[in-house]
């Protein structure tokens, strides 16, 4: 046991947690903005996959990683807009539309990837982002190399959390988002455009999901494979609940999940006993479900979540 304990406090382990948490944090923040405005986005899994593919393709064809990131973000925004079109403008079932967006985006991602790259035995790869050591900060023992010698996108995620909290709680737009998610009718009376605000929130959410996808194919794996997202989008949805629709708590949830996941990877590698590694892969999902059961007793979902808004109806 003490051996396991020692491993946890290794630099590599801490760095792994941060790395695993990064795409989850982007995705969770993205989903959180969408849900705070009252729109559940089950399209997240597909949006992340399509963004990951689009970003990878752009980076691979142009040789520019940042162009890849940009394309991934734009793809995420576009798919977010699609989801908003169905759920916000047309007021269709958020559950089913989300699944539809996921099926559509994943299908499109596979289709286009095969069209562009053909069928290859070894998937094409790119030279992804290199870790960037921040002067001074990276010299701090343990924390320095683990947190401040990371990919630029990791720093972006670290900045994104306080920024998201600021935007949500301290800006007029954030107030509008919270209003249209809690009480769209009141927001409407106060002169806030429910439709426009929801569109903006879902599109911003899509941009963050795109960043999550970009991280997977341009920093973490440097290639696009069909299992590149493998449930991270679904996990993000659970993390939003777990993080009680708050940016700080959501980021905390992402870190906690990443910790469990990194531990799972370590245990696999150390060949702990006779436990099949699938049991560890299962662990985060079971953990999330149990956590939801515990948390949901005092969960505070936005009251208008899942409820379409039509002005002329009551």
């Amino acid at each position: 046991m003490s051996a396991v304990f020692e491993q946890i406090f290794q630099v590599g382990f801490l760095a792994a947690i941060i790395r695993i948490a990064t795409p989850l944090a982007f995705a969770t923040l993205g989903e959180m903005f969408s849900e705070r405005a009252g729109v559940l986005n089950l399209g997240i899994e597909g949006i992340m996959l399509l963004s990951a593919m689009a970003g990878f393709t752009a980076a691979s064809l142009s040789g520019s990683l940042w162009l890849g990131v940009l394309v991934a973000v734009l793809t995420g925004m576009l798919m977010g807009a699609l989801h908003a079109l169905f759920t916000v403008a047309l007021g269709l079932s958020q559950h089913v539309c989300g699944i539809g967006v996921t099926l559509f985006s994943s299908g499109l991602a596979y289709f286009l990837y095969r069209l562009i790259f053909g069928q290859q035995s070894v998937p094409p790869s790119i030279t992804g982002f290199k870790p960037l050591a921040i002067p001074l900060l990276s010299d701090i023992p343990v924390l320095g190399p683990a947190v401040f010698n990371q990919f630029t996108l990791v720093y972006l995620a670290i900045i994104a959390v306080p920024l998201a909290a600021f935007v949500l709680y301290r800006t007029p737009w954030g107030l509008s988002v919270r209003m249209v998610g809690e009480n769209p009718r009141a927001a409407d009376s106060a002169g806030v455009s429910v439709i426009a605000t929801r569109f903006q929130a879902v599109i911003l959410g899509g941009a963050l999901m795109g960043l999550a996808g970009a991280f997977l194919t341009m920093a973490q794996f440097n290639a696009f494979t069909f299992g590149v997202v493998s449930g991270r989008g679904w996990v993000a949805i659970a993390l939003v609940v777990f993080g009680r629709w708050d940016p700080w708590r959501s980021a905390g949830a992402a870190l906690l999940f990443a910790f469990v996941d990194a531990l799972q990877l370590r245990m696999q590698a150390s060949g702990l006993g006779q436990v099949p590694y699938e049991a560890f892969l299962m662990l985060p999902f079971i953990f999330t479900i149990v956590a939801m059961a515990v948390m949901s007793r005092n969960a505070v979902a936005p009251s208008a979540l899942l409820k379409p808004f039509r002005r002329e109806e009551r």
Partner: protein
Amino acid sequence: MFRLEARTSTPAWFNLALPLLAIAATLILCSGLIAIAGAGVVEAYGVMLSASLGDSYALTETLVRAAPMIFTGLAVAIAFRAKFWNIGAEGQLLAGAVASCFVGAIPMPGYLAMLLMALAGAAAGALVALVPATLRVRFKVDDVVSSLLFNSVIYYALMALIEGPWKDTFSGYPISPPIEDSANFPVLVEGTRLHLGVVVALIAAPLCWFLIARTTLGFRIRVTGENPEAARYGGINVQRVLLSTALLSGALAGLAGVGEVGGVHFQVMSDISPGYGYSGIVVAMLARLNPLGVVPAAIFLAAVMTGAEAMSRATGVPAFLSDVIQGTALLAMLVALLFTAYRVRRVGAQT
């Protein structure tokens, strides 16, 4: 400007035409992708059509593929009727496959084996579906998220089995041992893969329709879904209805897995389902949650899947087109459904 205006009534022909309109819109939208891939649209769809429905062998292949989607489609349709958001048909299917494979490997008379496989598979699927339903009823956990996450849990459990105790020690492949030959579902037409399970699926649809439309449980399911408050005032135990719906829905999804083990693969492997559980959602929506509509909807999607492979070989258009068609069909159907409740009215500036 256009505005949506509530309809007071929906013409009957409209209800029937909607899925067809959605499918037509889907095929037109997806033809853009065929064109981008550099193939002739008419040719590509032509190959798909003839390879899926063109001759009797193709037709049986399509039916074999439709069977699991009929089951998952029914599972989703019934669950959604009660507004139990079962997105977990995929995991329930896998659980059904594992359970039936376990039973099928025990030597016993064939028909007994098949019966027990079906029971075990249905029970396993039902148990899995009961988890998100219980979590919702007891702990108010969102059933969408929990049923979705359970798909991953069941998938890894399956992987643990086929890479662990079930692993083929001879070849080293992660596949389960085959079921007994006597437990293989009988083939109905010599030279095809049309097995008994397909017939069971085709019979299950009218049975489910009867259950929903004509029985007390069906009535309770519908009322619970349409208006839980009214259901409660009417003396319906909403929580119990949700749990019954989950059991029924999970059992149907489990049977989809039974059919794949008993009739198609005779063992369990990691890719036993190419997402039939998720396709079930598309099927159910195309069928407008009507169990009878599930059959043509499942056959349509199955035809797209079988046809896409032949189209890919003939024209080089990636077979993943069938996944895009599924997603597009779901979205198109949702938009089409909008027009049963609303109509588009021109308002404001007259030109």
